[in-house]
């Protein structure tokens, strides 16, 4: 039986609308329940104090520091490596079996469960290289974990820069590198930033790989070789050990808010950059 087009159209609108509503509804429900249970505990003291009484009281300041430093370190390592790889693959090599293999490898790597990256980081950085549970081990492990995402999004962003721009740049006497630096990268930036945001999101939310490599020390790190605990790990430990549901929800609320702030800041910066260029 075939539906008349007019009804099919209505049905499509209904189904697609329902899918959208369901998605947004689930998101709203999660946010609402976390904020409702968590926000009342989020006070200045909660943000600025150290955990006390086996994490049942006090605040979460060291874990905020951990959640700030670890993704920053991971991005600082993964962005130059990933963007560099993407530039090399797109601008400096012709499409060959090797570049296709690298791309396929990156795609596979991004589907590997994070616990395996944690295990690798533990064996290689923590034990073999003797870095111990530390900011550095964690940062390196997370960097490897998000590298495929950064490479692929950067590559897509670079490929979306019109070929005519490159041609013009070359015709004006630019070398390949000058073309990359002055035309390709500025125009690919929004896409690269998107990759970085996805990477930061994964880092902030990551638990398994972090426990294995950065540990869960509640002391403030004094160097890259000190162990840190991130908010996600803190939440995991609080919830699993049944130490304090209030503290756990408070941590979750701060975690979500910080992801929101990071995203807003990044898109704000990007918007300013774009409008300055195309004023």
């Amino acid at each position, binding site marked *: 039986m075939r539906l008349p087009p007019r009804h099919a159209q209505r049905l499509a609108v209904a189904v697609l609308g329902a899918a959208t509503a369901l998605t947004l509804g689930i998101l709203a429900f999660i946010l609402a329940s976390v904020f409702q249970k968590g926000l009342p505990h989020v006070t200045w003291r909660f943000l600025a104090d150290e955990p006390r009484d086996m994490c049942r009281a006090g605040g979460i300041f060291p874990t905020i520091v951990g959640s700030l430093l670890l993704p920053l370190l991971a991005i600082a390592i993964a962005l130059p490596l990933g963007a560099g790889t993407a530039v090399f693959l797109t601008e400096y090599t*012709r499409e060959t079996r090797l570049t296709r293999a690298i791309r396929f490898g990156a795609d596979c790597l991004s589907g590997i469960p994070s616990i395996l990256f944690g295990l690798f980081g533990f064996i290689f950085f923590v034990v073999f290289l003797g870095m111990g549970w530390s900011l550095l081990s964690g940062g390196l492990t997370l960097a490897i974990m998000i590298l495929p995402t950064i490479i692929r999004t950067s590559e897509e962003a670079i490929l979306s820069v*019109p070929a*005519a*721009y490159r*041609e*013009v*740049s*070359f*015709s*004006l*006497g*630019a*070398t390949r590198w*000058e073309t990359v630096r*002055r*035309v390709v990268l500025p*125009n690919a930036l929004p896409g690269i930033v998107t990759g970085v945001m996805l990477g930061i999101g994964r880092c902030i939310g990551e638990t398994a790989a972090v426990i294995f490599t950065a540990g869960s020390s509640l002391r403030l790190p004094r160097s890259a070789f000190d162990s840190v605990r991130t908010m996600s790990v803190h939440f995991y430990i609080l919830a699993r050990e049944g130490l304090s549901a209030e503290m756990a929800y408070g941590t979750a609320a701060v975690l979500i808010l910080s992801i929101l702030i990071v995203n807003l800041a990044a898109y704000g910066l990007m918007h300013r950059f774009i409008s300055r*260029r*195309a*004023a």
Partner: protein
Amino acid sequence: MSAPARDASPAPAPAPKVRARGFSVFHGDAPSLRAVTLDIAERRILGIIGPAGSGKTTFLRALNRLNDLLPDCRTEGELLLDGQDIYRPEFDPVSLRKRAGMVFALPVPLPMSIRDNVVYGPTLSGVRRRADLDRLVEESLRAAFLWDEVKDRLATSALRLSGGQQQRLCLARVLAMKPELILLDEPCSGLDPISTARIEEALTALKAQYTIVLVTNNTKQAARVADETAFFLMGELVECGPTAGLFTVPRDPRTADYVTGRFG
């Protein structure tokens, strides 16, 4: 002829700026340009006409080695600029492109301000002083007949200009590099008659200083502005000579058919 007599005669015709000798371009195995032998006189406009696929754009892109960017592109024969073969391995294509600026069929302003578009080439060549750059911007925009329309908004995006303005900006961008050759690849194909007239006006003024090669689909345009015209067909140079002669008394029947509009 004796030496004194030579001294008395007017300055001899300058050596051609560009000489092609049996020059071919291959993409893969297929030749897109076959054994072209052609001189381009200094400070003149050479018009290149011919139907699509005739190799005229390939020839133009050979002059600044932009064909190099394509995979599997190779050349045979010689292409001499001021007597030097630009396809010799030691010849640097980047410095060549600074001497041979190109304007493309579709105006492609880079997504940056009008000023930054004009100074793109000069800053690559190391011009840094603001006063020098400002002077270059004004000179080049004036020479491209665009200055009066944009002088108050040099900092705005070049993407906001109209198509005709964008193409004149592309010309100004080339002029700012102080090239020796200006290569134009159907620069008016997307423009209205008035914008076209302004570009042609600029080109006619510019030939006092530059050697210009103008590829065009519009035979009338070649008749209007070119001093000499070359007719390409299926990768071969059929005929090249003074424009008036080529249009009125073509030597080759294929040229006659093309310029009278019997095909193409």
